[in-house]
């Protein structure tokens, strides 16, 4: 069991500024998986790139440790780094192009209900990945990271009202896509 198991993230950051490697390992343990999954979904399930970006996020954590304000929330800070990396990536690569992968092919094995659920889940994953990046980021922070609207507003540097409208819009888009998908399937 890590000696830092009960230490707060912000305190770990303070120790990290003093060069404490164990503090960094504890932070990595707590957040690496979540950041990786967030990246994975933001980058349309490109695992290799998601791994690279996750490494970059934690590299930034080490490099910018001194600039972290301990009165602020570490989770918000680290996801802001992750979100900014994604934004820069999309900016460099000329926007957010929708991609469909072959993994959406449905295999007819298992019960009908389970199959239906799997099909729906796969389709939903695809549609989430295909959302325009600002909506996708807001949607993932809300339902994947279970963040509060206020926290998301801080990360994306937008008003809380905009966060809510983006969530509503994202939900509307997904509902429309899923309805169209259901009409094609059935």
């Amino acid at each position, binding site marked *: 069991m890590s000696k830092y198991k009960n230490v707060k993230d912000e305190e770990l950051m303070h120790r*990290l500024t003093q*060069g404490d*490697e164990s503090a*960094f390992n504890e932070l*990595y343990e707590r957040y*690496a*998986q*979540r*950041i*990786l*999954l967030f990246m*994975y979904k933001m980058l349309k399930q490109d*695992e290799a790139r*998601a*791994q690279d970006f*996750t*490494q*970059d996020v*934690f*590299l930034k*954590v*080490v*490099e910018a440790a001194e600039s972290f304000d301990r009165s602020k929330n570490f989770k918000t800070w680290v996801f802001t780094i992750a979100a900014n990396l994604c934004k820069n990536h999309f900016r460099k690569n000329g926007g957010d192009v929708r991609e469909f992968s072959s993994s959406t092919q449905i295999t007819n094995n298992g019960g009908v209900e389970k199959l239906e659920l799997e099909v*729906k*889940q796969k389709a*939903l*994953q695809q549609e*989430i990945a295909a959302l325009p990046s600002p909506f996708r980021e807001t*949607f993932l922070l809300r*339902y*994947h990271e279970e963040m509060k609207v206020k926290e998301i507003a801080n990360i994306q540097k937008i008003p809380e009202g905009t966060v*809510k409208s983006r*969530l*509503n819009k994202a*939900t*509307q888009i*997904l*509902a429309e896509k*899923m*309805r169209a998908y259901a009409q094609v399937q059935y």
Partner: protein
Amino acid sequence: MDILNLLETKNFEDLNTAEVNFVCQQMSADEYKQQREIIVMTQGLFAEDISQPTIVPLPPNKALAALKNKKKSGILLLFQSKISLWKAAAVFVALLGTYHYFIQNSSTTKAPVYITEYVEKEVVVPADPDTVIKEVVVEVQKEKLASTETSSQPYKVGELHQISPLRLNIEEMAMLNNLEAEILEMKQKDGVRVSEDSITRKVLGI
């Protein structure tokens, strides 16, 4: 009341009248149900993702290497830290200005003065005298002296010493005293000492 909050927490069937009215002002019941389904499915999907991750993060090699370098650098940070170009230029201009200022000031300073001669002056401090000789002036009553000079009357016995016009100092007085004593001790032709002579005694008032 917040539509997002309702979508995240309640099925359409669970809404109360006020909430149903609120929802129906913004969308149809079917739309609400579809959006509600999306949110519920998403939450289930992501919960599964986190509990059973399909991918695991790689060891943070880059970050650990950076952390080790950071620890090593220590004093080298002074040289490794980056500053913007305008700051560097500003410092350069400031240094150049300071250098020119000192150069100009040093050219206008006076020529140096060298010491070529040492002058020594002897100061004589007078010693305190151990003996003080004071001159004592014996004043003579001028009126009486004047009267004696003009008077033809003989001097009265006993007043002879008072008409002395002399101003004597101590040494002279001592000398006179000695002389007087010697005279008094002298003997006359008949063998009688002057001091025992009756006339002399009357003259001197002895």
